[in-house]
């Protein structure tokens, strides 16, 4: 498949061929009678020129179809680029969500651990209130 010739190259080759044939025809027209091509050869040359001209026109039609397809390709590429942007955006949001969630889970874990610690050594609420009164009575910031 990769050995297929591009339409651009094909068109340029045809133009080169047409140029060569034209040069031959013109040289033949200005050549002296002794050097002129014979009748059948000359008609072969002109037939070849006409055939090349037709080939050129067909290839130009193909080029026009390809230009049409190229427009569709451009639209598709734009769509794919948009999807790429959306995917990148979504990826960033997912990463952010992952970070926030992992922080939240860590903090919830800490809270659970401190709840477990508290449950291991329960303290009655009257004792807590007594301590609180003593602390505020002496204007301290922690228990003595």
């Amino acid at each position, binding site marked *: *498949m990769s050995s*297929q*010739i*591009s*339409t*651009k190259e094909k*068109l*340029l080759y045809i*133009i080169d061929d*047409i*140029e060569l044939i*034209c040069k031959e*025809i*013109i040289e033949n*027209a*200005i050549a002296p009678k002794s050097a002129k091509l014979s009748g059948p050869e000359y008609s072969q040359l002109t037939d070849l*020129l*006409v055939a090349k*001209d037709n080939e*050129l*026109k067909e290839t*130009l*039609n*193909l*080029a*026009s*179809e*390809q*230009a*049409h*397809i*190229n*427009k*569709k*390709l451009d639209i*598709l*590429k734009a*769509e*794919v680029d948009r*999807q*790429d942007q*959306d*995917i990148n955006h*979504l990826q960033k949001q*997912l990463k952010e969500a992952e970070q926030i969630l992992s922080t939240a889970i860590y903090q919830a874990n800490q809270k659970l651990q401190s709840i477990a610690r508290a449950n291991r050594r329960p303290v009655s609420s009257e004792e807590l209130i007594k301590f609180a009164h003593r602390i505020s009575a002496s204007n301290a910031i922690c228990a003595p």
Partner: protein
Amino acid sequence: MDHGPEEQPPDPNNKRLTVEDLNIEILPLIYEIIRSIEKDNHHDNTAKTRDSQDCSQKVLELQKRLDQARAEIRMLPGIEYSKEQQLNHLEALKTQLRLKQELLQKYRYMYPFDIQKP
């Protein structure tokens, strides 16, 4: 083909050419050159010099038209590949677009955080 040659509007903002902008009529020029070369042989001297000038002008014009055609062909859009390669590229892009859209659909509309009540 859906459009005729006369219906393509020229696009001034687009540097690219359409095929219809090309002037690739070689055969009429060649015919005129050959005719004027052959006419050459039948006239007197004054007409001959004029005709040969005419002739060389036409040959130059032919050369110019060929070169211009080459330059314009290089500017045509979409012909860097053969038609088959281009169509394959189109299919590949379509598949890529479909896959990416499905991916986005999947992640936008899934509900990972529906907590199942025990």
